[in-house]
């Protein structure tokens, strides 16, 4: 009898836990509430002027700043520890520092106007440059020996290039099977530990997942907007609105997609999807942002004060 009661109790607990998990991460989802835990850069200091890229480790926050052509290092309390870089085209110099990613040991920085990737150590000492012949639109550092890159170069959009640390192409992945017009296949992307690739198209209502072998697993349209309007400028026809600005994975594999101009709250709505592509929930950032970043402890980072401030939030799932 006692044994049966014990088994029943355990079963009830397990069912309860299962239901709770489904409630939090199933199709009908709880909301996500942001709690600010850190603010880096204010009106009165000279810490940040126009931050663009961010990456973190357990002890530090690294940021690129486009206004003063620099790469900066902060501690976990937001104190500026070190700054490197200046305007120029030499080693460790920038014309427009942009994206930032890291491996275990190194930091990788792109420049909007200069092809290639600058490599720094964690003390912000310039190490070398990975020579690429094209400008980088988005990047993901898989390891010190492998970097995935997409480009804006005409004729090269629609592919993810995997480079080694010398700038040699290891492989190419075609995610767009049909040739779209200029910029329409431009994406932001992320790659998980299994090599699965997640794409959010910048100018199409399309979010997709491919496995490590390149097979498409699913494709999602969240906004149901049809085709994005385009405009003729000189001899080119280009899209006029951004659909999705950025995509990032959290540690559990959930996908976070930052909406662009066509979201209900432009550049503030963040769509959360499961690994299977189910739309779990949407939450809204307090201010517009050009990107989102999630660190190894699942804290979310985004922009505030027009890029003068970097905000860090704890994401709390709240029951509906």
């Amino acid at each position, binding site marked *: 009898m006692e044994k049966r009661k014990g088994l029943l109790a355990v079963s009830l607990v397990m069912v309860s836990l299962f239901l709770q998990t489904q409630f939090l991460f199933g199709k009908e989802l709880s909301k996500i509430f942001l709690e600010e835990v850190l603010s880096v850069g204010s*009106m009165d200091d*000279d810490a940040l*002027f*126009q931050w663009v890229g961010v990456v973190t480790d357990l002890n530090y926050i690294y940021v690129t*700043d*486009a*206004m*003063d*052509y620099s790469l900066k290092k902060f501690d976990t309390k937001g104190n500026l520890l070190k700054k490197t870089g*200046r*305007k120029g085209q030499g080693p460790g110099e920038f014309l*427009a520092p942009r994206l930032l990613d890291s491996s275990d040991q190194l930091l990788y920085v792109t420049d*909007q*106007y200069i092809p290639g990737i600058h490599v720094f150590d964690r003390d912000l000492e310039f190490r070398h440059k990975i020579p690429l012949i094209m400008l980088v639109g988005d990047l993901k550092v898989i390891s010190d020996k492998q970097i995935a890159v997409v480009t804006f170069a005409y004729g090269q959009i629609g592919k993810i290039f995997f480079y080694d640390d010398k700038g040699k192409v290891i492989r190419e992945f075609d995610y767009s099977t049909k040739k779209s017009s200029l910029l329409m296949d431009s994406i932001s992307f992320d790659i998980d530990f299994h090599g699965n690739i997640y794409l959010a198209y910048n100018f199409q209502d399309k979010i997709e997942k491919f496995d490590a072998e390149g097979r498409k697993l699913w494709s999602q349209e969240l906004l149901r907007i049809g085709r994005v309007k385009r405009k003729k400028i000189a001899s080119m026809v280009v899209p006029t609105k951004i659909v999705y600005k950025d995509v990032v994975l959290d540690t559990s594999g959930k996908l976070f997609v930052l909406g662009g101009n066509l979201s209900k709250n432009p550049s503030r709505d963040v769509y959360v999807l499961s690994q299977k592509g189910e739309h779990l929930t949407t939450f809204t950032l307090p201010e517009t942002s050009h990107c989102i970043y999630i660190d190894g402890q699942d804290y979310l980072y985004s922009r505030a*004060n*027009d890029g*003068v401030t970097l905000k860090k939030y704890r994401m709390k799932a709240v029951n509906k």
Partner: protein
Amino acid sequence: MKFRHFIMIVVLGCFLLTNGELSSMIEIEARIPQKNDLFLNAKMDSYDSLENRKLLLFLIDFNDFMCLSCLDSFLDFYYCLPSDFQKHLSWGILVFNISEKEGNNNISARIVEKKLRGFVAANNIKFPILIDKFHVFNGLAEEGTVVMVFDWSRKMVKRYVFPLNKGQIEEIFKLLTE
């Protein structure tokens, strides 16, 4: 003929030509300088020495700070200027619009002030720049960042919108150096 007399003749002439319509007279950009005029700060001993003075006024559009290449033309032009025009003979006005979201001039002005600080330091800008908090100059910078050349010897003001083409750059340098 003294400069003051010239201005009075121009004003009277316009008054007569426009049948006394006051609004047309406002279009005259030259004005009778006063002793406490800002240009007198540029190390001049007397009002008469204005005749050989040239000055640059940059109206910098804050929106161009958001576009990474939009100020390249301005910076390239600035770095080519003679030393005096990089420091003493130029002024800057930073124009911006109130953020529609904020509705609070103070918050936007503080962001603008901070970004200006970063821009000036990072690009080694040596002339003073004022933030146009009351949006006095917005109308003159609707097309973006501009440079205005004040030429007292020729008694004229000219305005150029960035990015400058080769011909405009040559024209400006000719005005400044002749």
